[in-house]
């Protein structure tokens, strides 16, 4: 029996290695591609790892110094490589938009979720049903009218417009996760605080919020990841580097048939850094938040 156990464990380990490779290979490939020169990358077959890696591509994105390897082909690549120079701006825009959305979520979702968790009032079920249902409405179905309404609000091509859309799309999820979280806290401490004369808002701020940190971390991480990465609305509603977020910029570079593959790879690597750091830092809260929000209604 013990030998069978050992064989099984070896098999599991092998499967684990395969899984790790399937997950990691695309990441390693794009990292390696970003450190190569164009002529290396488009060799058939391409080298697995460049014999002489270079950070020239990154330097070009941030400073505009054309890499030596391109100087000879600049005529061919001129316009396209220009687009890549928007990447730093796009990263900044994505970051600002994501932080704005996180902030709105933390404030509005906390207020609403605490009410859903503790208050009883007429219309509670209807309001909650509305929140639950809108959580799953995919963006494609409302893209056109949202474009039109944003236009009439004068918020096309603005970071504020994106923050509002993203908040509307993340709030239902955040409210839901936080409501579940607040309900899991013991109500006795809050009742004690109320008897001591705290208002509801004071109780929320001084008693409930310190206990709810994991829930807040989860909704913060979710709304950050969603708004940092969202593509469709950003594509429809932004036009200039002033508001374009990183997914829009790297997508427009990548669908250009003349774009340099190494520079595309640089854009992808840069676009993935912040989400990966966030996802790993908040991993535990993300996992528990996901499980709770999707399986409980």
């Amino acid at each position, binding site marked *: 029996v013990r030998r069978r156990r050992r064989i099984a464990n070896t098999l599991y380990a092998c499967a684990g290695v395969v899984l790790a490779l399937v997950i990691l290979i695309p990441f390693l490939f794009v990292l390696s591609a970003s450190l190569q020169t164009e002529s290396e990358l488009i060799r058939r077959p391409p080298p697995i790892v460049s014999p002489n890696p270079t950070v020239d591509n990154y330097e070009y994105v941030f400073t505009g110094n054309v890499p030596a390897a391109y100087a000879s082909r600049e005529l061919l690549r001129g316009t396209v490589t220009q687009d890549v120079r928007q990447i730093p701006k796009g990263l900044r825009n994505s970051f600002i938009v994501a932080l704005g959305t996180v902030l709105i979520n933390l404030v*509005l979702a906390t207020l609403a979720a605490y009410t859903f968790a503790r208050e009883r009032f007429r219309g509670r079920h209807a309001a909650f049903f509305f929140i639950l249902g809108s959580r799953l409405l995919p963006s494609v179905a409302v893209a056109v009218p949202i474009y039109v309404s944003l236009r009439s609000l004068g918020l096309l091509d603005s970071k504020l417009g994106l923050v509002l859309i993203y908040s509307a799309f993340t709030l239902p999820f955040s409210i839901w996760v936080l409501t579940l979280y607040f309900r899991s806290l013991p109500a006795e401490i809050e009742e004690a605080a109320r008897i001591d004369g705290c208002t509801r808002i004071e109780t929320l701020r001084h008693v409930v919020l310190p206990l709810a940190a994991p829930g807040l971390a989860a909704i913060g991480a979710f709304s950050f990841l969603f708004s940092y990465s969202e593509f469709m609305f950003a594509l429809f509603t932004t036009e200039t580097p002033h508001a374009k977020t990183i997914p829009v910029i790297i997508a427009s570079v990548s669908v250009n048939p003349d774009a340099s593959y190494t520079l595309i790879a640089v854009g992808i690597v840069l676009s993935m850094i912040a989400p990966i750091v966030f996802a790993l830092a908040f991993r535990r809260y993300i996992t528990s938040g996901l499980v709770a929000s999707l399986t409980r209604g």
Partner: protein
Amino acid sequence: MATGGGAVAGQRARARESRLGRRGYSWMTLAPALALVALFTLFPVGYAAWTSVHRHVLVLQDRPYVGLRNYQNAIEDPLFADAIKSSLIFVAFAVPLVTIAGLLVALLLNQRVRGFAILLVLVLLPWSIPTVSAGITWRLLLHGDFGAIDGFLYRIGAIDEYIQWLSSPDLAMASVIGVHIWREFPLPAILFLAALQTIPPELSEAARLDRANGWERFRYVTLPHLKAALLIVLVYETIIALSVFDLVYVLTGGGPGSATTLFSWFTYTATFKYLNFGQGAALSFIMAAVLLVFIVVYMRIVRVREEPS
């Protein structure tokens, strides 16, 4: 709250709150969130309904009522049937495959093997990055002229000629589905793993003592515990698969021809390429209606599950 000013302010706040009453407080705290959500969900759906029965073309000023003509035009478009077919094929393959992949990964991660803790971290990676980044990475990997996958297969001698993963009609659809699975499997994996961890180990042990083999243990001990998670994953992934957009944009642009023109992509081109908002709204409304069915089903599943507690 010990200082005099604080106490006075506190009293005032309390007085305000009691005047406001419980209902006032409730609605005041809900209003900002509800208003924002409604502005971008209820209003757009209503607006789509209105637009869909009017002629709304950006270059023309007047917007006369046209009844159901937008719907009729949309449906009679020969590409409409194609788009529905593509979406159905996509859903039919992507949803079961994502679910099975997630289940297999969860079963694997549930084993106690040294070093698997790192896998739990890795599994989150494909899900955490922007879909666009994942799509472009795979576009480079699958490139028919310089792609690393073709390069690898060529090097080991598995192929004599580079395969056109993204520009031959059948392979393009399969490739998009494959990339979708790579990106989407972490979510079901996490859900299934959470469900697996609620199974008391004694149950599996008891089955083992009863000389149940691996499959029987899975079929009669594990699977019943996964039923709820399974239903949720299936419905949720159907909603996700029906609304795929980003991947099509960066991988194939709906092509070659209309091979990967999923319904969401079709709606996008009708609206933003041809600037026919009326027809775009009609298509959006059809889509919202279909999705609403799944959303209601989903909510029923989660509700039913909660009732006993």
